[in-house]
């Protein structure tokens, strides 16, 4: 199951989504807005996405993950809009009969999502400065 939502992420629901009696390993990653990045204090992150394409890319990711690994449950939820410090922007939950598979697949899903899914974050600092995060580009600096 994949979802892009403006609502707070229900991590308990994400984990229940992947529960499966044939799986001994259940793994959930939550990416949350972190207060400090070096000496910059973040107040919130503001996520924007290219909705139709982001959903399509997330579906592709999930399909590829299922081809590569023996996964049973698979749930990816990305929140967009404002995500205050401490709240989750991303939940990735997977279940597998085997633990190593769950760890490998979850890491690959997150790594690949961060490279290919058209979602962007803008940092809003305590001082009210905003900066779009476009890795490899220095346009905002």
């Amino acid at each position, binding site marked *: 199951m994949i979802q892009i939502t403006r609502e707070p992420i229900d991590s308990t629901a994400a984990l229940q989504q992947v529960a499966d009696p044939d799986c001994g390993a259940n793994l959930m990653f939550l*990416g949350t807005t972190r207060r400090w990045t070096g000496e910059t204090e973040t107040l919130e992150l503001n*996520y*924007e*996405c*290219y909705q*139709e*394409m*982001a959903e*399509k890319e997330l579906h592709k990711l999930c399909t590829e993950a299922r081809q590569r690994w023996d996964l049973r449950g698979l749930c990816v939820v*990305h929140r967009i809009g404002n995500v205050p410090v401490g709240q989750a*922007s*991303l939940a990735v939950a997977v279940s597998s009969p085997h633990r190593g598979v769950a760890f490998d697949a979850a890491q690959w899903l*997150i790594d690949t*999502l*961060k*490279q*290919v*899914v*058209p*979602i*962007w*974050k*803008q940092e809003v600092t305590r001082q009210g400065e905003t900066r*779009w*995060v*476009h*890795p*490899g*580009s220095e*346009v*905002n600096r």
Partner: protein
Amino acid sequence: MIDINVVLFARARELAGADSIKLTLDDPATVGDLKAALLQQYPDLSTLLPHCTMAVDHEYSDDDTALSSGCEVGCIPPVSGG
């Protein structure tokens, strides 16, 4: 002539001052041609556009990808989801 709808996101949207742009290009046209036309009409995109990937009808493309009238081209700056 082919009509293209370009949608822009994040910093690219801000630099262009628009979340979508309608462009008309000579037929045939590629993504490379589209980028050249964009740069000409929106010079403020010059710093970011070289870092952007274009998506044609929701699929990543390259400069040689052909465009057809009515397609949607997404201008995708380096992504930072997660």
